[in-house]
């Protein structure tokens, strides 16, 4: 895991170099440029990792909730005292350094969830425990949402994988999937068309299943619920979502082609990645990268640099590295004896997976543009520190698994 971590960090550092590359500051250690600064973040992150390794493993379990509540306080503080960068009031500026509490809230919440689920014999059928769990998630999510950083707020949905592993009915996942499909269909077509299609499917199902009253009632009931959902989609879309969210979704679905505004980012991203071909244009030779056509290229769209300069081969390597890391985390999590460790491990994988999947999907035009970084690779001190902490806590817990 550590080697995979280091590999990704290195890739990130090199890509940032290419993305920000300025002929006048050619040294990768140049502190005035992003890549120099990233180096500082990397070094300090490694230092943090070391600190964590040296800490007693029991510390994390014991202090899970205090850390969590501390983070909540910080999140409230940033709403009051924080600075606004790019429209989000999510930053503390200390000297020349900017820190983003939302990043750190991720591992704090993970600790809290792991602690909570491992202490009681939590039953997903118990409304009270489910409720408390949701509150642990909703609290930071809401506070981050208030910062106007929608992307980071949505991250907490990732915990659904943790719950699934711990016993939540799989039906929830399926319901989630169906909701998303219906949502998209309704936006692409009109509600009436979708309801009619649904009706046809239900009729077909009637032919294939056991025709007893119970099944028919359930089927009819579900049909009604889904129809209601479909009808509410447009209303929710127009009223619950803000303009730029709507635009991004529309651009994604192809309803709008806004090449200048919201669509510009994705279009440039696709152009950069797509023009990479099989083997890419070579290090520092990416024209879209070099000439700054992709916005946010060192942060959210860092994958474009890889895509353009290293082509399909390079992109596949990155995807592979991430998948490998995730699978490794799951396997290590499974062999934990302590519930706390296992649940925490799943949390790490879920959070990383969410970032990885959404970020890359965004660059490939498969998901609306929301601002979340690619872990370990994107430029940013807070992000790198927070993910490093997230991962190394788990590494630490794992190294003591035999002591559970």
């Amino acid at each position, binding site marked *: 895991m550590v080697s995979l971590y280091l590999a990704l960090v290195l890739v990130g550092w090199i890509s940032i170099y290419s993305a920000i590359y300025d002929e006048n500051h050619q040294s990768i250690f140049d502190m005035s440029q992003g890549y120099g600064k990233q180096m500082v973040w990397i070094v300090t992150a490694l230092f943090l990792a070391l600190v964590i390794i040296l800490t007693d493993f029991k510390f994390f379990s014991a202090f899970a909730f205090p850390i969590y509540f501390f983070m909540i306080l910080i999140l409230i503080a940033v709403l009051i005292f924080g600075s606004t960068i790019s429209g989000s009031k999510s930053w503390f500026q200390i000297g020349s350094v900017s820190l983003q509490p939302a990043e750190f809230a991720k591992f704090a919440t993970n600790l809290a969830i792991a602690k909570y689920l491992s202490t009681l014999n939590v039953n997903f059928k118990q409304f009270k425990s489910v409720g408390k769990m949701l509150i642990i998630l909703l609290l930071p999510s809401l506070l981050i949402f208030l910062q106007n950083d929608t992307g980071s707020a949505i991250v907490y949905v990732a915990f659904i*994988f943790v719950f*699934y*592993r*711990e*016993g939540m009915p*799989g039906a929830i996942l399926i319901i989630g999937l169906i909701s998303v499909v219906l949502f998209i269909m309704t936006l692409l077509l009109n509600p009436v068309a979708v309801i009619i299609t649904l009706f046809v499917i239900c009729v077909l199902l009637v032919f294939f299943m056991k025709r007893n009253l119970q099944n028919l009632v359930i089927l009819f009931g579900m049909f009604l619920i889904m129809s209601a959902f479909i009808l509410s989609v447009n209303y929710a879309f127009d009223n619950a979502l803000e303009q730029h969210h709507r635009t991004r979704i529309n651009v994604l679905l192809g309803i709008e082609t806004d090449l*200048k505004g919201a669509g510009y980012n994705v*279009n*440039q991203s*696709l*152009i*950069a*990645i*797509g*023009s*990479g*071909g*099989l083997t890419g244009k070579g290090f520092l030779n990416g*024209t*879209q990268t*070099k*000439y*700054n*056509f992709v916005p946010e290229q060192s942060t959210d769209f860092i994958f474009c640099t890889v*895509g*353009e300069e290293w*082509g*399909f081969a390079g*992109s*596949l390597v990155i*995807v*592979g590295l*991430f*998948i490998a890391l*995730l*699978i490794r985390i*799951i396997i290590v999590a*499974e062999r934990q004896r302590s*519930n706390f460790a*296992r649940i925490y491990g*799943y949390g790490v*994988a879920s959070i990383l*997976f969410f970032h990885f*999947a959404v970020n*890359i*999907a965004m660059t*490939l035009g*498969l998901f609306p543009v929301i601002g979340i970084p690619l872990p370990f690779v994107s430029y940013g001190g807070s992000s790198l520190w927070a993910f490093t902490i997230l991962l190394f806590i788990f590494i630490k817990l794992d190294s003591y698994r035999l002591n559970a």
Partner: protein
Amino acid sequence: MIENKAYEGRKIVIIGIFIVIGIIFAARLFYIQVINDKYVLSANNNVLRYITQYPARGLVYDRTGKLMVFNEAAYDLMVVPKLVKNIDTLQFCRLIGIDKEAFIKKMKKARNYSPYKASIFEEQISKEHYGYIEEKLFKYPGFWVQPRTLRKYPIPAAAHSLGYIGEVSPMEIEANPYYAIGDYIGKSGIEKAYETELRGKKGLKISMVDVFNREKGSYQNGIYDTLPLAGNDLYVSLDVELQAYGEKLMKNKKGSIVAIEPSTGEILALISSPTYDPNLLIGRIRSKNYNELYADSLKPLFNRALLAMYPPGSTFKTVEAPIALQEGVVTPATTFSCGGVTASPIKCSHNHYSPLNLIEAIEQSCNPYYWNVFRKIIENKKYANTREAYINWKSYVNSFNLGMTFNTDLNIERSGNVPAPEYYDKYFGKGQWRSMTIRSLSIGQGELLVTPLQLCNVVAIIANRGYYYPPHLVRAVSRNKVREVKEYEKKFTKVEPRNFEPVVEGMYLAYNGSHGTARRYKMDSIVMCGKTGTVQNPHGENHSLFIAFAPRDNPRIAIAVVVENAGYGSAYGTPIATLMMAKYLLREFERPTYEEDMFNASLISRY
């Protein structure tokens, strides 16, 4: 602990989801990176800027090697509206020197043309202004400067012949895709006729730009770049000094002068008056000046030398005589009596002793004489009827290139008019017309129309005693540093050379005889031959025509002068023609007093 085992299977689902997402990404990546070309093209579009390298347009020299047209550098401000983001409009307007409304209007125009393609924002910024702007232009993404050349005329003469260039129109682009919007193309005169020679070949520079449209270097080290090829220079047959002299002589008069070198058909001077300074029609000022010139009631843009048609009047006698001699219906000694100013059916313009022979009738321009000559041709028993005889006569006239065009490099011309027999059939009824009916033709009036160019060519034919080279403006084109001379085919009339001698004698006597209509302007240093023509004009005063050539043997210049509404042929046509011939043959000569008169004469009040 028990739950641990119970749901352990679920790890497979979760890992499965990870792998599926990974595969989806791999597939998508494969599609956009390997299979789909679209993004490579878009990437190039973003990054590559195709900058046209404009070649120098060919220069134009006169026959003595003097420069008539050259190029001057100017700069266009180009814009791609889509790339114009977040600029300080006020500062930009101040930099370029336009106001905010103009800016908005121009941006709208550019956007209407295309938001993605380049178009001209501001035309022809001067060299000095360009340097100042270029420095600061990086602040305004989407704008850049394109250098180009304008035409300049060191001697403001021959505007009609040289023509002018202007921006290519959408129709012209459609006809020839070599042109792109913003290119220049010859619109009239030599600029148009020799467009393909003069324009050279555009070059291309492909450079890479960043998101702010700043140039970052050559694409692929310039292996796809092409150098522009300069246009070919032209050597025109005009003598610019003679041309300028003639334009001065024709100042404040309407009409034209055409001078040709008979041995080659090269046009020495082509003057249409009123004329204009060719420097008026270049660059930014062209539109405005063109409109003003167009609206001028004296029509300075109209090239009278090539397009204005007049009845040839008495000058036509020089065509009739050879035809009659060739047909054998008269001899040089044949006489006809003349009743003077009261003669019938054709009056003579003045009283003179009678009878005259063919030669004297030219010297003194006797109308009744030539009416009789014409009658003889048309009533020739050799032909079955009037119509047949007329067709024969017409074919002679056509062989002098009257009623026809030359189709050389002049770009525009009119054919004049020699009526077809069908015309008279229709007007009078078939078989209903005789020589008497069409008698006006005998004195060069009636339906007969010629252009000054055709008239000059006629006198060139006489000078050559029976043939001509089609008149043309360009004698050589410089290609690959080699002067390629244009060759034209000699054209013969239907009249043998010996039948021209009497005409030549008559024209000689016009200057040198005691009764010659041009005797007042005889010059001792040159043997000139000429013929006056006074053309009746129903709208006002008669037009003054004069044709001449010199010297009598081995002639070097043939000239035709038309001065509208000037009265008698000898009043203006003769002195001007005489001065022109003297200027060309002698260069420096003692100026007779009437030169000054001609410079100063103004007939504007008659127009």
